Structure formats: structure tokens, C-alpha cells
């Protein structure tokens, strides 16, 4: 079925266009992004349940962007009356003028930026989904999650609880200017299983998830996630700490994705080039990894939770080859950063929601697969670890340091898994060294869309990353 576009947005579109026309009398460029995204978040554990109509991306509101004298200004609001469009335009202008007064009083100068193009464009996209979150039988879903949770705790006496979470969001966004009318509607869903356990006074939890740009029909797959979570919890509870040092590593597709995201995902967000905060700007055309490293970024790379038709500035989705056989080719760019750098936007201008500013952000960041099998890669390791499970990571585009917190490391000695597990694992290093050490890649190709990504310590958006198993060398602590 098609994910039907929002009737509410269709209803307010004429009023928004009237507001754009009114503001156009005072500004050289005007756009409005309007959103009406609904969804659910259902949580079931042995001890407590909840149903909430909010997810990270549910929202209803508008943001108007205006341009004059080299400056872009924005106004976010969610009390729009289409019958009072002219009044709203006056309100926007008044408050933005008041801001300009403060800027003048403080002697603040403007970062002069060219005007955005506004070529005529129309787009209406309703993507395929199996179900819609707003039409889902939540009673049946709660029962399903309860069965999964029951199965999770029945698998081991050490399991304290098994939390099953199902989230689904129907995204509807409309981007309007004088000449553009873009509307898109799609559904994405993500399910997670958090299994909590204790052994010998030590508590810990495992985390397993599924995601796709599809509807709540994907939640049948959580049964496998429950089994996986149980195995991983057992591994963590029996784990030791790593002896700090440099090791050969094989990263699972999930951990490979974390490296892609932290190493060169953030590092080539080109709004950071504008601020001179990214070393990547100086390395375009230069080697940053081994021949085994090819990396794509874009909403069109794979189908997962961030595979939209256009970004929050109305730029069509893209698929950029950032690294080609170890050579850094280009970055990704939002529309304003592109104007400032004299390049083209790549469809990576994203907002946390209508209340937030656009930044250059990742969508799907993926390493290309190789030709080896996971088994061949393990057999090639003299002494090292197979790293699985992502906890967190932190970018460092200015210096290319990398910090990845990985859930588990499985010891490999003389090409064989020994059964010994370490947890947690801090993987640190210098990005070109890490990517330069990649010597094998598997034929696997998996994406993961359960996480959220911040810029600095805020601006949380959905992102996806992944790739194959990779063999490299890294410092573990």
C-alpha cells in the first residue's frame, strides 16, 4: 500500500503559499517546511508497559526561512491559522526585525551568503509500506511484544527482564517556495530488544534491533532479536576486561557502520568545512584508507529509516561516493553550506524537527562489501578480536581521532575463536591509520537504523550505517 500524504498539510498548503507570497514582498527568498508525522512507541517488559504516540520524529509544525541582504533567518511555529496567513507573515517579519535590531545594537556582522535558487519543481511521493502506524492494531502488537518478552525471560534464569520496544512513524513533509511544491510521505519502523540480566552480582544488558523503511509489519522479526539478545547477554555477563593494546580486529557490519559514521561520516559534513572544523577539506583527492575502503553516503544508498525522497531544504535525495578505493573524493552538503563553498547540495540538509536549524547530516553511511567470507577473515587473524555490538561513538573531524565503544570482543588466536569474551571494548585511534589498516572485507552488506546521531551533544536525528565485516588493526582498551 502507499503511505498516504497528510490531509492536514494539504489543507494548510494554500494558507502557507499565501504567507510565502506576503513575506516575498519583504524578502528575496522564502521557503516553508511543514511537517505532520504521526506514530507510536509501544514498550512491553515483564514489569511495565506503555503506549505513547510520540517517537523521535513525530511532529506537527512549520518553519519559515527568509533571506535578505546576505542573511538567512528562520521562524518556527506550530499555531498556524490558514485564514490568517497575512497576519502570520507580519508576525514573522516583526520578530525577525526585532532580532536584527539586537544584532545592530551589538554591532554584529553578517556572514554574507548568496541567495538560494528557486527553480520550478513539483514532486509528490507516497512510498510503499505494508501497514500504517496510525491504522495498526496496538492491542495485537502489545500481545505480540508480551510473547517475545515472555520468551526472553524464559530462556535463562539470569535474565531479569526483557524489554521489547516497537516504534513506527509515518513521516509527512511538505516543502514550499514561490516556485517549489514538494510533498513526501513514507513510513519507517524500528524494533529493539533490551535484555537485562545479572550474574554473580554483576548486572548488564544486551541490545538487539531491527529497522526498515517499512511499516509495523517488520515487528515479527523481533523474535529473532530476542534470541540474539539472550546469547549476547550471556556473553557479556561472562566477559573479562581487555588487556589494553593494539590488536588485529574483525568488525561486524554493525561495528563497521559505527566506524564509517564516526570516522568519515561526520568528518565530511561540509558545514564543518565552512567553519574550518574538518580536516577532510584538506584531504580531498588524497589517500585516507586502504584500497579496500569505498564508502557511500546518501538517502538513496540503501532502503532504511532515513531513505527519504528529499531533505529538509527541498534537495532531492542523493548517493555520494565519499571514499573511492581509499581516496577521499567529496563530502556531503546542505544547501547553505553548498552556497558558501561554491558546490552543489547533496540532499543531506536535515533538522532534528521543525523547531531546529538545518545542519549537514548523515543519512545512510555504508562501506562497500568485499570478496572474503567472515570465516576466511577469522582464519587470517593471529591474535585479535571479533568486535560485535555498538554502544556509542564520538566524532572528531578536526583531528581525526576516533572513539567507538563496542559491546563485545570475541578472542581469536591462531585463526580460531577461543570462546573468551571481553566487554566493553573502547576502540580508539587515528582515522587514516585505522582505515589504512583495513586489509579484508566480507561479501556481507547490512544496514542498521536503530540509533540516533547528535551533532556535538545536541541535534538528534535518525541515521543509518553499516557495511560488511572488515579486518583492520586498532587500539583496544
Amino acid at each position, binding site marked *: 500500500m502507499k503511505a498516504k500524504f497528510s490531509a492536514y498539510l494539504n489543507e494548510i498548503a494554500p494558507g502557507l503559499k499565501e504567507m510565502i507570497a506576503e513575506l516575498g514582498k519583504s524578502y528575496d527568498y522564502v521557503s516553508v517546511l511543514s511537517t505532520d508525522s504521526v506514530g507510536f512507541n509501544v514498550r512491553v517488559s515483564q514489569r511495565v*508497559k506503555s503506549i505513547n504516540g510520540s517517537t523521535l520524529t513525530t511532529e506537527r509544525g512549520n518553519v519559515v526561512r527568509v533571506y535578505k541582504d546576505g542573511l538567512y533567518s528562520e521562524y518556527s511555529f506550530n499555531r498556524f491559522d490558514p485564514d490568517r496567513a497575512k497576519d502570520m507573515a507580519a508576525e514573522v517579519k516583526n520578530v525577525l526585525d526585532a*532580532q536584527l535590531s539586537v*544584532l545592530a545594537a551589538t554591532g554584529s556582522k553578517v556572514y554574507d551568503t548568496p541567495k538560494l535558487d528557486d527553480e520550478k519543481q513539483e514532486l509528490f511521493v507516497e512510498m510503499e509500506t505494508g501497514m500504517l502506524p496510525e491504522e495498526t492494531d496496538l*492491542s495485537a502488537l502489545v500481545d505480540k511484544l508480551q510473547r517475545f518478552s515472555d520468551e526472553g525471560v524464559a530462556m535463562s534464569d539470569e535474565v531479569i527482564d526483557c524489554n521489547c520496544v516497537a516504534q513506527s512513524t509515518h513521516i509527512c513533509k511538505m516543502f514550499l517556495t514561490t516556485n517549489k511544491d514538494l510533498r513526501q510521505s513514507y513510513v519507517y519502523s524500528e524494533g529493539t530488544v533490551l535484555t537485562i540480566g545479572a550474574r554473580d552480582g554483576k548486572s548488564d544488558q544486551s541490545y538487539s534491533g531491527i529497522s526498515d523503511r517499512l511499516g509495523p509489519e517488520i515487528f515479527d522479526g523481533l523474535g529473532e532479536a530476542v534470541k540474539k539478545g539472550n546469547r549476547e547477554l550471556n556473553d557479556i555477563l561472562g566477559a573479562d576486561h581487555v588487556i589494553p593494546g593494539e590488536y588485529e580486529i574483525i568488525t561486524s557490519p554493525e561495528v563497521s557502520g559505527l566506524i564509517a559514521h564516526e570516522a568519515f561520516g561526520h568528518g565530511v559534513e561540509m558545514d564543518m568545512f565552512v*567553519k574550518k572544523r574538518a580536516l577532510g577539506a584538506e584531504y580531498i583527492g588524497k589517500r585516507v584508507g586502504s584500497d579496500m575502503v569505498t564508502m557511500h553516503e546518501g538517502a538513496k544508498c540503501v532502503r532504511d529509516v532515513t531513505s527519504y525522497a528529499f531533505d529538509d531544504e527541498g534537495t532531492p535525495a542523493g548517493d555520494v561516493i565519499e571514499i573511492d578505493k581509499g581516496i577521499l573524493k567529496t563530502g556531503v552538503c546542505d544547501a547553505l553550506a553548498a552556497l558558501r563553498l561554491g558546490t552543489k547540495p547533496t540532499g543531506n540538509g536535515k533538522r532534528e524537527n521543525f523547531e531546529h536549524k538545518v545542519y549537514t547530516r548523515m543519512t545512510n553511511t555504508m562501506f562497500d562489501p568485499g570478496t572474503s567470507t567472515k570465516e576466511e577473515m577469522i582464519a587470517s587473524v593471529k591474535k585479535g578480536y571479533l568486535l560485535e555490538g555498538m554502544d*556509542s561513538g564520538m566524532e572528531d573531524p578536526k583531528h581525526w581521532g576516533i*572513539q567507538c565503544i563496542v559491546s563485545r570482543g570475541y578472542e581469536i588466536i591462531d585463526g580460531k575463536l577461543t570462546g573468551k569474551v571481553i566487554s566493553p571494548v*573502547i576502540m580508539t585511534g587515528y582515522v587514516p591509520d585505522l582505515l589504512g589498516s583495513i586489509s579484508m572485507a566480507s561479501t556481507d552488506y547490512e544496514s542498521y537504523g536503530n540509533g540516533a546521531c547528535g551533532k*556535538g551533544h545536541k541535534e538528534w536525528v535518525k541515521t543509518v550505517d553499516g557495511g560488511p565485516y572488515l579486518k583492520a588493526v586498532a587500539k583496544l582498551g
Partner: protein
Amino acid sequence: MTDRIIELLKRSGADAWEVKDKNVKAWEFYFIRHQLDQNRVRDVEHIEVTVYRKLEDGKFLGSATQEIAPTASDEEAGKIIADLYNRAAYVKNPYYELNKKPVKGGGESFDPAQMARDFIEVMQQIPETSGEDINSYEIFAESCTRRYVNSEGIDVTVSYPSSTVEVVVNARNEDHEIELYRMYTSGTCDKENLVKEISKTLSFGKDRLAAVPTPALEKATVLFTTADSVELFKWFAMKMHAAFKYRGLSDWEKGKAICDDVKGDTFTIKAVKELPNSSYNAPVDSQGAEIRDMYILKNNVPENFWGDVQFSYYLGVQDSFIASNFAAEGGEVSESELRNGNYLEPVEFSDFSVDPITGDIVGEIRLAYWHEGDKVTPVRGGSVSGTLAELIKNVRLSRELSQYDNTLVPSAIRIEGVTVTGA
């Protein structure tokens, strides 16, 4: 709109309900160097409704929550409330009661324009040099009003300011340039403190340029003297959170010391109603409970669990509330007395995190000072790690305290036996 929603709720057949209505007026300014990248205004209202339904003769209480847009028609709002009533039947939780004690709101509205202007002027006053300067900064100044209404008779409104400034600073020499990142949150603009903190960060930048790789110290004494200390104290606070306890994520018990064989200082932490210029100062929490001063942990012994009404009820905790400001007590010695012997003082991590369940601490070092008696060497790279449950047996806390927005902590925390991986 909120009053219309309340009328719809009264007629909905719900056994109980609550409405949270938050209005925010915010001014934002984004600067690259000192040039304005963009200016923004936010004027938004969020109305969240929860409908409760007694199940199986009141043995269970179901609930469902959703936001209703301020532009929703009565028909649309009525349909959402009816859906929530149906959904609540699927959420069979043990019975609990909403807050019902009368409470008094308060606060005053703040002018985001003035707050934002104060921040701009402060940022223009930061003493920069050709070697250390400001790369970019983002200013967020909010005036917030929060109204909470429930079916048990509570209707209370609080107003408060909240502001954040994110700052990136650079330092450079002939060979290369480095950056440091900071995010400061407070009520309104604390000019004096902000100038002091950013100036200190600029000096860290200078030291980072001269930093050498962190030596592999294996087990070392580590002195925490920055906002990262807050992460350490959050672990204690979360272990005493009612939901954490009820869900089996905390095995701490009231009256039973959290660890044995303590060789250093013990921890005492209070939830407090107010801290100077905290962005969390409000007399009432988001569920209509009065916020007051209360010991959470006293000399390593859990005193009171805290948290939302559902889990507090399950634990039998009376008059609990969602704590928002925390104050730790210091130790008996001064910070200068803690600075002795060999120790590592990290002042900049990529990201310093403490796992709320395991207490595992992790951080990749971007800048630290390796103190060997009087010799101080700036170092970079490598990481610190360990498990708080073990490490807290041998900790010394300074007598002096430092406040980071809603948390007051000892200005120096000295921990023995932390794993330090070299760069």
C-alpha cells in the same frame, strides 16, 4: 486549546487524566567566528495528554499518551482522546495513583531577547589572541511556561528561563590547529562565569597544541576537575531512581551501604529545589509533585528513592518527585591537598560516559595533564576506563564545590586505580 482539551477529557469517561502544556519562546543566534550565520525564533506550544483507565476492578491501571497539536479541532482532539482511552486498555500496569496534593506554581517570565543579547555581548568580550580564538558559537535563550493539570484537582503553572551556548574554540601554532568543544547550560546568562570558563578553555587549547601522547600508565590516580564529574554523580542518582529500582536495574537498598571496604571519602547527594541560576529551577515537577530538598544518598547509604509517580508508588515511596537539581557534599580536604604525587587530570574527552547499569566509565583523552610532583605535562590520546562500583571504594573529594547548571559537585574528585591506556 488546553482548556478545550480538559473539557473533552472530563466528558471522555476516562478514570483519570493529565495534561502537560509547555510554551516556549526562544531566540537563537548562530555565529561563525563573530559573523552571524543565521538568526532564528521559536514560538511553539506542545500539549501532551495522558488518559488513564482502571482495569479488572481497579487492580490494574492502563494509560496511553499522545501530543495533541494546538491547532487541532475539537473533533480531532476528541478522536485522539477516544483512541487513547481504547489504547489504555492494552497497557495493563499495576495500579498507582496520580499526584493529588495541592501545590503552588511560580516563577516569572523572562525576555528571551534580553537573554540572547546578554550572550552576544559576553561572547564579544572573550579575550582572544592570534593563537587562541573562538571558531563558532550558538546561542539559545528560552522563556518557558509549563502548565500541569490532572483529574485529581491539580492545576499548576511554572515559568522559568533556560539557555545554552555551544562554543568551539581553536588554538594554533605554526604546525597545526586544534579545537575544543564546550556546551554551557544555565537559567539566564551568567556573564562572569561564562567568560571565566571560556577563557579557561582557550588556555586548554594552547596546552593541547603542546601535548604529547599519553603514556600507558596501566593503573593510575585520576583527578576529575571539569564538568565530566557530573557524569560520575549521575550514576549515583540513577541508581536511586525509582524506575531503575523497580525495573531491576539497581540493586541498591535503603539503609544498606552501597559498598564495603571504603578507604577514602563516602558520597552524600541531595535532590534540591533550587541551585543558583539552574535551568531546572521550578517548585513543581512535570507530574504536579512539589519539589523539595531531600537526601538521596548519605555517606554511601541510600536514603530516598526519587522519580515519577508510577514507580514511586510501586516502591511505596511517599511524597516523591522527579528531582531536577542535585547537590553533592564535598570531602574534608581542599583541592590543593588532593593535588599531590603522580596523577592524571583529564580536562577534555572525546566523550566521557558512565554506563548507568554497570557503572563502566569510558573516555578517549583529548587533553589531560600528567602531574609528576611539580612537573606537569599536557598529554593527548589514549583512554581512561574502569568500573565505578569498584573505584568508589577509594575516592577523595575536595572540600570546594563547583556548579554545572543543575548539579553541584566537588571541584576535584580523586580516584585511585583507574585504567589508563596510552596513546
